[in-house]
Structure formats: C-alpha cells, structure tokens
C-alpha cells in the first residue's frame, strides 16, 4: 500500500476510506458527463479530518476533489486525474439559526432545502432555490454558486454568504467574512471562494444570511403566440416597478413534451408561456397581480390565467416540474446548458437557438429562468450515437458563442467544471483568465485542489463522447 494511504489511515476511521472497486466507481461521476475512477473515496465528518486528509494530499501531491451529493451539472466533483474524492455528504448536519441576527450557521453537508425549512420556523427564508435543493448540499451550492428561480428577486448563493470557514489546499484553517451584513475589512475572500468550484480549498462551515419570509405568493400564467412578445413582456414587467420572485419560461416544444408525458392542462398551441410568481403582503399582491395582468394584455399576450386557489397554482408549478422527465422521453441523453444573456437579448437568443437547432439537426428545447436571462437550452440526444453526439458538441459550442456574442456568459448557475473550461479564454480573454490562474496557483502551490476544473488544458476541447 502506498505511503499516502497509510498516512490517511492514521486519523481517519477505516469505514470512511473506500478502496473497493464498487465504491470507487460510485464516486466516479456526477450529474454531468464523464466517469473517472478515483484511487480512493474518503468521507470526512469533521474539520479535523478534512485538515488531515488535505495535509496528506498536499504532502504527497495527490489530487483531491471535494464532493457533496454529486448533483453537479458541470463536472465539479469528477476526479479527472484520479486521487482522492472527498465525500462531505455524511458530515453530521448542523443548522444553527440566529433568528435575531437573521443568520444561520451550517455544516457543509446540510441539504439546501433543510436550511429554508429551519428558517421558516422563525418566519425567515433562505432564498436560493436550485431545483435540486432537496438533494444537493450547501457545500456544493457554495462551491458552484448555485442559483434557482428566485434568483431574479433575491439573488444567488453568493448573495447570501456572510462568512466561511475554509481548509486551504495546504491544510490550514481560515475564516473569511463574518456575521454582519456590512463588512469591508480587506479583500472579499468570501465571494472569491464561493463559486471557485472547490479549487481553492474545502469549505467546512458557512454563515448565511436570511430574509423575512414573504407573507403570501400569487402565481400567474401568461401565454404568447410568439417568443418575441414573451421576451418583451418580461422586460416590460420588470420596468414597471414590479419585481416578481420568479419568471419561468417554457417554449412550445417543452409545453408539448409535458402534455404528451402527463397532461397538465398547459396550452399546447401557445408558442411560449411565462409562469410568474409574485410574493409579498397579500394586499400588495392583489395590486401587483392586476398590474401584471394589464401589462400582459396591453403587450399582446394571448391569455392570462390567474389561479384562484393555491391548489390550482400548485398544478401549474407541477407542470413546470414535469419538464425534466417529459423531455427525457424525447431522447435519453440530456445536455443541459445554462448560457445566460442580458434580459433584453432573450428574443435574440431564442432566434439563435432556433438557428442552431436547424443547422445541426438536433433536438433543442428551451425553458428556464427568463426573468434574469438565464435560459436552459437542453439538447436531447443519445450518447450511444457517436455521430449525433459529434453534432451536439458543435451545437453546444455555438450556443456558448451565441451567448458571448450577445454580451452574456457561458454559465449562469451550473458552473464551468470540465465541460466549459475550453471556452473560458473566449469569454474572459487571455489576461483575464491568466489573472484567475495566478490566484489559483498562489492559493494552491502544488495544484492538488480539484485539478482539471475551470482552467483548460492546452488544446482542450468539449467532448461529450466516451471514446
């Protein structure tokens, strides 16, 4: 047995060290593409254990990849160069709400939805709501700076982080930020670490901000006969003094897929629908609902439905939730992108997506968080079909190009990981990327923390095919 494995065993209980092939394969993947066999998967359940593991990895220069529940859509926890997958999901849950401070202290293993559950007991809310919140850990959310529908009004994960505890790639423990809303003491390392995809260290604790829980919500579903009008309607709403908590977009392909899969009463003739959720005081909601209805009618929406009961509203959101399984019925492999554009460019982006679909003859459906320009074009394909996957690779490249051309970005909320690394320089420029790399190199002199992510290898290309 290698020296580093012996060194690990000095402080980590045997049952937390997994070396059998079945276990190693079980930590070889995430919810994106690719499968890479680690040498070992280790579970850490305390800060002390993390420090030990990272110190050993640094000493012996073994790559180490922090992992939550492996729901990442961009390859964040993939052990691309072998080494150690560090599973943090089994760390005992800690959620300490300080209601009077409107903050909460959490361990990295906590499921994101659990934070909101605990906050609600105090009339508070943890707003970031990635659709995987009931599965994903806050540690993973912090590493990837996850978003969600409510990002429109409340912001994404980074907007809710006040302070972090981090084990650096050299095994030292640092605290960043603090527990206050305002804090300008030194560099904002907190924001640097959030979204760094585990390349700067292992987050072992976070202090998060909470906000008052809105007293009520109101759903509105709006139908359009063309996508352009839907795009305009989104901008018009947001410039009329109304900030909905969610504005979700579904194109016709999505609507029809859902209706074929599980009839939910969505309008199959609409070119697009926008599902809006307003939140706030019930009296304010009444006024805002009227306003939105007026805006939609004026701009030429073909229909506006305002559910009268919360059951009806739930039905609409359930239909939205069916998108994922419904489109999986079209073809088994789903390449889910999250290229994001300035809000005014949504109609143009939709045109470009349509052209890409025609050009490469691939199945593309579009849904997403239109209110903040964060679209989810999904390409449905079959990864056993090598020829088709080659076309998909080209289509994905062109989607990234379109987003950048329109002043947008490669990724709104999924992260860069392995898949989007080849396009980084294109968006950031050579110097921009180089400055990031310098930060990375000075934090992690031995390059052990989650190598192969964010920064491309020389000549690296997008690959969705296995061989």
């Amino acid at each position, binding site marked *: 047995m290698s020296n580093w494995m012996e060194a690990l065993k000095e402080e980590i209980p045997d049952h937390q060290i997994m070396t059998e092939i079945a276990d190693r394969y*079980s930590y070889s*993947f995430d919810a994106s593409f690719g499968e890479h066999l680690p040498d070992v998967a280790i579970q850490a359940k305390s800060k002390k254990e993390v420090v030990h593991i990272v110190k050993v990895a640094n000493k012996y220069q073994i790559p180490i990849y922090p992992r939550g529940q492996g729901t990442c859509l961009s390859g964040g926890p993939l052990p691309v160069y072998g080494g150690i997958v560090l599973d943090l999901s089994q760390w005992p849950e800690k959620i300490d709400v300080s209601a009077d401070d409107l903050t909460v202290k959490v361990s990295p293993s906590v499921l994101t939805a659990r934070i909101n559950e605990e906050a609600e007991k105090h009339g508070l809310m943890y707003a970031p709501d990635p659709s995987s919140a009931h599965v*994903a850990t806050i540690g993973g959310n912090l590493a990837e700076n996850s978003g969600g529908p409510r990002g429109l009004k409340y912001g994404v994960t980074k907007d809710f982080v006040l302070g972090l505890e981090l084990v650096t790639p050299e095994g030292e423990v640092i605290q960043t930020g603090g527990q206050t809303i305002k804090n300008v003491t030194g560099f904002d390392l907190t924001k640097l670490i959030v979204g760094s995809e585990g390349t700067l260290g292992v987050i072992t604790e976070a202090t998060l901000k909470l906000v008052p829980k809105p007293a009520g919500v109101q759903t509105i579903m709006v139908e359009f006969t063309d996508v352009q009008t839907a795009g305009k309607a989104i901008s018009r709403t947001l410039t009329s003094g109304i900030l909905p908590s969610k504005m979700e977009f579904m194109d016709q392909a999505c609507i029809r897929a859902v209706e074929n899969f599980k009839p939910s009463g969505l309008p199959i003739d609409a070119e697009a629908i926008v599902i809006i959720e307003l939140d706030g005081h019930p009296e304010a909601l009444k006024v805002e609902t009227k306003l939105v209805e007026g805006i939609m009618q004026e701009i030429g929406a073909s229909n506006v439905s305002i559910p009268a009961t919360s059951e009806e509203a739930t039905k609409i959101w359930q239909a939205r939730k069916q998108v994922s*399984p419904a489109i*999986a019925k079209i073809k088994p492999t789903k390449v889910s992108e999250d290229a994001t554009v300035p809000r005014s460019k949504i109609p143009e982006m939709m045109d470009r997506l349509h052209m890409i679909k025609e050009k490469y003859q691939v199945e593309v459906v579009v849904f997403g968080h239109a209110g903040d320009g964060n679209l989810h074009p999904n390409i449905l394909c079959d990864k056993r079909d090598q020829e088709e996957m080659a076309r998909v690779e080209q289509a994905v490249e062109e989607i990234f190009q379109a987003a950048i051309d329109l002043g947008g970005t490669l990724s709104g909320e999924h992260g860069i990981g392995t898949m989007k690394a080849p396009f980084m320089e294109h968006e950031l420029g050579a110097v921009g990327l180089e400055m990031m790399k310098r930060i990375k190199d000075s934090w992690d002199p031995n390059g052990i923390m989650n190598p192969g992510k964010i920064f491309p290898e020389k000549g690296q290309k997008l690959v969705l095919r296995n061989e």
Partner: protein
Amino acid sequence: MSELQALQQKINYDKTFDCVQCGYCLPACPTYETMERETHSPRGRINLVKMVAEGKASVQDLEKPIEKCLGCMACTTVCPTNVQYGEILEGAKEVIEDHQIKSTSRKKIEDFLFGSFFPSGKWMNTLGNLTWFYQKTGIQALANKSRLTKLAPLHLDKFEQVIPQQPSPKERSKRAKRYKRKRPAHAKVAFFTGCVMDSVFFETNQNTIELLLRFGFEVVLPEQQTCCGALHAHSGKVNESVELAKRNIKAFEEEEIDYIVNNAGGCGARMVEYHHLFEEGTTWRERAEQFVSKVRDISEVLAEVDDLVFNKSVDRTITYQPSCHMTNVQKVKNPPLQLIKDVPGITLKELDRPDFCCGSAGIYNIVNYEDSMDVLDVKMKDVCGTNSESVITTNPGCLLQMKLGIEREGVTHTMDAVHLVDLLLEADPQQK
C-alpha cells in the same frame, strides 16, 4: 452474440441510460441513509450495473450492493425520468444468481428458506402446516439442526417471538372455498390468500374473508392458487417466479370473477407486474394482462363500497405504516387511509416519513439481519414519536417487522402492530 452482449441484455444495460444521475433518489433511499455511501444508493447501483455491462467491473463487484438493496422502490416514485429500477434490479439479481457467486452462507440461507419455508411446489396450506409444525418444534431449533446457524446467524428466534399463535392443520382444513351471499353481491371476488399471510397470519386471512362478505362481496378461494413468486424474483430465481405466475394465472381463470383481491402489499405488487414476465404478443402475455387488470388490494375494493356503517367505536391512537410495494409499485396510497379515517373513534397520527421502508423487504430481514435492523431503528424512532397504541400495516412482512420493532424498542405493553383488516373488523362493519 458475444458474452458481454448477452450479459448486457440480461442485465438491462439499455435501461440504465434512462438514469441521468441527478441524484433525486438519494434522499428517498433507506440504505443510502443507513449505510452512508453512494454504493448503496439507487444511482450508485444503476451505475455499477452499467459498469458491469461495460466490462469495467465484475459481477462479483455488483453482488453486495445489489444484495443490500431492500427493493422498496421508493426511488422509482421520486425518479424524475421514470427509470425502470425494478427491472434493472431483477436483471442484476438474475445475473448474480447465474454466476453462482453468492457466498456459501447466503446460498445456504436461501436454500433453507426456499426449500423448506416458502412453497416452491406445494399447495400453500402445507406451508401453513409447516409453520405450525415449526412453531411447535421451534424454527430456530430446526435451523440449528440443519447446521445452518453455524454458517450464518439467522436470528430466527427473534422472529419466532413475534409470530402469532397458529391454528392447527385441522382448523385450517375447515375453511370453506366458496362464500355465497343471500343478498345480491357488489361483485364476485377471488381471494388470493398469499403464502406467508395464510400461514403466519391465518386469522387475518379469515378476517379478510369475513370483511369481504360484510362489505357485500361474494368470495371464492381458487384451490390451485400458489405463492405469488415475489420472494423468488427478489432472489434472482426468475424461472421459478415465472412458473408460479403461470400457475396463478391459470388458477384464477377458472372462475368468473370481477376482482382478484389480496391483503399483502408485496404479493399485490408482484401480481400487478405479471405481464412483464412474458413477451409481448404471446398468449401468456395476454392472459397475464387479463389477470393483472383484476388485481386489487383489499383496501381498494372496500373503499369503493359506500353503503356501510361501523357499529363499534375504536378509541385508540394509531399510526399507519404503508407497505412500500403498495405505495411504489401498486401505487395504492389513499384507500387504506380513507378506510382508517372512516373508523369511528380513531385518532390517526401520520408518520413523518411514511414512505421510508421498515426494513422487512421480503427475506431481507432474515438474510441481512443487521442491515435490516438499522433501517428498522430509523423507522421505529418515527413510529414511537407518534405515541400511538397501534401501528397499522397492510403486508405480512411489514407486520412481522413492526412487531419485531415494538419488541426491540421494549414497548410491547403500550403498542401493538395490527393488519388493517383486523382493525376494520374490530369496528364491526355492517351493511346499511
């Protein structure tokens, strides 16, 4: 066809591609929670099946993760892409059985159970008699005699403690095969007695017949019926399981009936999937589909009846532990709850996590005793938290397991486990 291709077909390689590895199944999986690793999660298992099919891992590597799966199917209910986990699991079990790589102790246990305990060829009454015999002589003693316990601790004594007193073979043989009604019947039903139900819980089966009659059904008990085959299928014994299905299909074709009623969630789940055992376009497939269309859990047919009153108030606080197979495979969720709520005097305290398996899972609690108890301990925490006097279940395996859980928690003096049927009969239902 190459060896790998043959393996791929048998192990349902194609179906593994429906899994997009989103991980939504993780919070629903009891063994992921108790065993704390991805290897023992649905997503991990599906990935391993794929790795085996691609020749990257061996069938041996797959054995433990598959053996440790409860088969509760909670993952299929939460899966956003409708992965056919049941088929993948059974395919994997079949391949493992083919490769004969099961450990000696596991094989011995299975031989014992399938050879002596569950009927592989005999009319199930024989089994009932056997249970009676075992109880008289001691199951554990019998296992000891076969020197099985030397190879694997079977903990059968634990189960023995909670098995109700059995009627003698003579009492069993007194049961009629046909119950006509004087008043016109709502429907004519054939009662599927089940083998564990009919042996270990014979009284509950008698109560089931009584209940069906009181609710206004005509009842027949086709004599040629046999074990549903669920336990065989769960152990990878596919051929035996198909054989049992055929015998049941045939047995129930001989009567003109509206429904085939059972009171065991696990058996019902097996029977509603009989058609999957036969290729499309074949006569057996057609016959199986006919059979499946008539299969109902007893709660489904009872809940449909609306001209009934309960005469007796049952003043008790109870909780309901749904059978996983009833929830996740038969998709029967509401009828039992509706019936419970109809009983006058009942206070129903629902569990925090009713969809979390109790750990019984067919023969899982016998062959994987320690793992099963870990799952049961999680369940019992929830059950005890309701401060209920009774736990209501709808499946013999769950019923035994809950009895075991009550014993383990040391609360036998304040809590018992009861089949839904027995509860309903206690409330003395009569037609209006």
